[in-house]
């Protein structure tokens, strides 16, 4: 009996349990989805009912999964592209948007974090523009910046603010005693910046990058909605939404975005951990 209790305790505290719980949550989600879809379609175990008129809105998980694999094997019926091309196109937008957002948000964030005047100047603009959803900019960006830069600009907006806010906060939280120490060791202003402020801000920057990438993916459908050069996963989803027969593909496109976001955030996470180890912080 004691052994059993001990074993249960051990399991409860192990990592395996956490992994198991993660799988369980996915399994529960898929089961509920499947049951509801079966209910709408009047399939087993709901065979007796008449099918719902909205049944076509929700294909079952297996149909979505097969549409997912099919999208890599065959060109899609609307834009006649493979899913790999759509992924490449979206990744390129995320990449360009990210690079631009990073290049602008980091220096501006550092400046606003370290200079009260810069903050006083920048804060009103930031606070007014930050809550405006990137979606609101879609029409004008696509008209004014056209199909190449328009989508990138929308993704840029999504990534820019999380990085800016985190970098500003990080630069602001630099422990003053570390700057005092640097000064008494003979550090000039530039040394204080590059050897104290910058390394101190790095972990905050990484948080901003992770959050920003997630929001970047959230903007991709909006960015590619009204047209995109060379396709895009968002473009694919939007086009598949016009015909109920393609709804399984539409859901497959959503799955692709989810997986891509997990991938980019995962890469950022690996870089972050490496950085922490290299910097000696856990």
């Amino acid at each position, binding site marked *: 009996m004691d052994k059993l209790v001990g074993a249960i305790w051990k399991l409860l505290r192990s990592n395996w349990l956490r992994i198991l719980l993660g799988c369980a949550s996915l399994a529960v989600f898929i089961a509920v989805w499947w049951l509801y879809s079966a209910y709408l379609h009047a399939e087993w175990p709901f065979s007796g009912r008449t099918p719902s008129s909205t049944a076509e809105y929700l294909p079952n998980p297996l149909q979505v999964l097969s549409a997912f694999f099919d999208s890599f094997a065959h060109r899609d019926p609307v834009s006649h592209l493979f899913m790999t091309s759509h992924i490449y196109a979206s990744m390129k937008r995320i990449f360009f948007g990210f690079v631009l957002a990073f290049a602008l948000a980091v220096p501006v964030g550092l400046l606003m974090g370290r200079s009260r005047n810069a903050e006083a100047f920048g804060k009103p603009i930031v606070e007014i523009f930050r809550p405006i959803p990137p979606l609101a900019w879609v029409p004008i960006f696509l008209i004014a910046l056209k199909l190449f830069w328009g989508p990138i600009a929308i993704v840029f907006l999504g990534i820019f603010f999380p990085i800016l806010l985190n970098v500003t906060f990080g630069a602001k939280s630099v*422990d003053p*005693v*570390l700057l*005092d*120490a*640097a*000064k*008494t*060791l*003979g*550090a*000039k202003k530039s*040394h204080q910046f590059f*050897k*104290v402020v910058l*390394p*101190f801000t*790095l972990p905050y920057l990484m948080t901003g990058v992770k959050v920003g990438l997630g929001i970047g993916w959230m903007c991709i459908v909006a960015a590619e909605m009204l047209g995109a050069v060379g396709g895009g996963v968002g473009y694919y989803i939007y086009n598949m939404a016009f015909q109920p027969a393609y709804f399984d593909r539409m859901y497959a496109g959503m799955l692709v975005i989810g997986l891509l976001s997990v991938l980019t955030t995962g890469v950022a996470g690996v870089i972050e951990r490496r950085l922490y180890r290299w*910097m*000696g*912080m*856990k």
Partner: protein
Amino acid sequence: MDGDEVGSSIEITGLSKVFAHDRLEVLALDGFELQVRPGEFVCLLGPSGCGKTTVLRIVAGLEPKSGGSVTVHGREVVDAGSDRGMVFQEFALFPWRTVRGNIEFGLEVKGVPPEKRAETSRRLIELVGLKKFEDAHPVQLSGGMKQRVGIARALANDPEVLLMDEPFGALDAQTRNLMQKELLRIWSATGKTILFVTHSVDEAVFLADRIVVMTARPGKVKEVIEVGLPRPRDRTSGEFIAVRGRVLAELDEEFEKARAREISPD
């Protein structure tokens, strides 16, 4: 400028400091005077809020003074500089740098070539007893070890004076006693002038050549006590206890004054 033979390492005359909080002005230091001889170990002792840390920060050049004069080796202090090393109560180590990286910081910003930096840090790591930890990061070190890094880092620039702001205040009693002995060993090995802020009477009597007891705010010198006991000092000896009693009596008076003022504010 005084010659080095006659002169002091640190010379503070008529030092005053006013802190302005909103519209309220607080006189923290008023006519503080102190001369520290080269190679001397002086402790600043006083009730909390008496401005002893402020004196240290002004000498370090981290805080501007409101009046008076502060010179270190004949040069007026205007801002922080590597001729005055400082050791902080919070250790203030750069968490992203290794022990060696922390110690070499000052040399790095001075542009000393890597081989020479490595040589200096190796020597200092040995001096403070951190061999085998040179590649550890601060998170991996105990409080005592962290402060050994803090001391080595301040010494790396070969400063004329070492300013220590309650450096052992965050350590447990055992480590604290050990670090006091270690500091005396390092002091006699390097011959630096040390200005050491503490609120521990025991620590001051154990370490100092002279103890400067400060008044309650506004801080000035109340009494300078020459310890005059040979080292290593025995905390349980009669002489030690006698000096301790004298310092304590001076300090108690100021505590009473500070307390009386708190009870009936003027």
